[in-house]
């Protein structure tokens, strides 16, 4: 069974597989071209307090993503 949740629901240190990017073409392209793509394993490095950005790691690369954008990255935790 698949369990889909937004990236923001993961805790620090958690990993999951990216399932879906909810957003327009430009949003999807922006994420994909910077390495955030469906099927990739994503790990939460840290969540900055007060709804600050989330820092994730994919393929050994770190990226800072705002909460709103992270909300639209749907991951599979099953």
């Amino acid at each position, binding site marked *: 069974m698949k369990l889909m949740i937004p990236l923001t629901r993961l805790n620090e240190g958690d990993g999951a597989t990216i399932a879906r990017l909810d957003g327009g073409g430009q949003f999807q392209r922006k994420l994909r071209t910077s390495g955030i793509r469906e099927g990739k394993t994503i790990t939460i490095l840290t969540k*900055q307090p007060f709804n600050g950005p989330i820092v994730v790691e994919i393929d050994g690369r*770190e990226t800072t*993503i705002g909460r709103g954008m992270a909300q639209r990255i749907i991951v599979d935790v099953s």
Partner: protein
Amino acid sequence: MKKIIVLMGNPNVGKSVVFSRLTGAKVITSNYPGTTVDYCQGCLRLDRKKYDIIDAPGAYSLEPTNRAEEVAVEMLEKADVVLNVLDATNLERNLFMALELLERNIPMVVALNIWDETKHIGIDIDVKKLEKLLNVPVIPTVALTGQGIKGLVENISAAETRDVVEPTSEEEKWSKIGRIIKEVQRVKHRHHTLKDRISDATIKPVTGIPIAFFVIFLAFWFVRFIGEGLINFAFNPIFEAYRPLAMDLSQSLGGAGTLHNILIGELIGGEIDFVESLGVLTTGLYVPFGMVLPYIIGFYLMLSLLEDTGYLPRLATLSDTIFHKLGMHGHGIIPIFLGMGCNVPGTLATRTLETRKQRFIAATLLAVSVPCMAQIAMIFGILGPHGIGYIFIVFLTLFFVYIGTGLILNRFVKGESPEIFMEIPPYRRPSLITILKKTWMRIKWFLSEAIPYLFLGVLLVNILYAIGFFDLMGNLFAPVMEGLLGLPGEAAPSLMVGFVRKDLAVGMLLPLGMSAAQLTVTAVVLTMYFPCVATFVVMMKELGYRDMIKAALVMVCAVLFVGSIMRLILLGV
């Protein structure tokens, strides 16, 4: 016809280093994405053929999402040959733009840059196979050391159009990338290194925020250390050696008269005072070289060091929460850092922000409340004798002005404030030679920028003074100065001069005999009211005249408001 080579690639892949290797040109590079916000043009001579080389700003794809990317795509239109620079340690996502470029059917050569790092982090790439799959020459390079550049040059001159590549959809490109990666790349598992642990500690808020404060404190301590060291051991001795020479000149000019006033200025107690005399050859030389330049050197050394280690993107991440409330995002800290050296490069750096709203807020706040090195020198110059407490009040006020004005602008400026989305590059050990070179280039830039304005400034002061313009202005603005700000009307002319060069105002303010509290208000007002004319021109270009008028209005309102509040608190009247 000269052929045009355009360098294309993702941000932070070392394109600018490749460019400087090819052209011998000196360009500024850093370990944070988006340093090149404008294109650079150079020349390459090869087998008696000449090429123009353009270094386009970094872009993730050919569908632009910000101004820098738009410039990159515009540049591509001119290309006879494309040199696509890829980050070998990050091949997969770099390939997207490579495939997009191939579909443009322009002769192309690929540079697989940062090749040396692949071995360190356990990535193995089959270059021959990649070359076959892409059907263009692929050359591993290490631009920093120059490895592979020769091969690159040979391939550029031989580059030709191959079989026509048909356009494909985004989906198709990604699946093609998946196939290519599977065939050419092997990644070995890697252990957590010390570097990773440092990286983690500096980006997690619990440890990262204290570290950030410590780093900033250290940075400014370093600037002061270098600056004061240079003043005490280099610049002051030079000026003391120069003093008798200037005195001789003063005497041969008869100690007074128009020419004497312009060149030497006024003698104070029969002696030249380098700060207050206000002559082209006294104050005009001393303020920029003896007071500002030493700190500029220290500042740019520190900035280059911070940039090249890769710390700034971490600072941007940690401060994003605050900047987001001000309508920008973490990237907004980059213009501030650059702006503390000089507001002109700071204003240019606002281009890395995505929307008009963000750029407007960043540029306006920069102009209103981020003092450049000349302004900082001015603040220290007039308040230094009264103690560090007053200087602290000035910086604290400017900090609150930045936050306050930002909160207000975020509410009232229309437009989008997209969130932060930024790659965090790995820490790199900065190379001493690169840092020194970069510092030297920035200082040279500052000097070529500063010298014309400085002479113009001093000349203007002396002429306006001679024709009585300042008295007129003093009278005209006396109601604002005295009534609203509680300052003597005579301080008004220094504000005019401040428009040309803020640091020159020091010499004009000191003789007025204002109290420490009055000087504190003056320092804040002088920092806030308008940026210098050079910044003004750049802002006009970046924002357009309509937004510039709005920004100027914000500046005037802010300075009058803050000035009168400070007057109430500090002067108690």
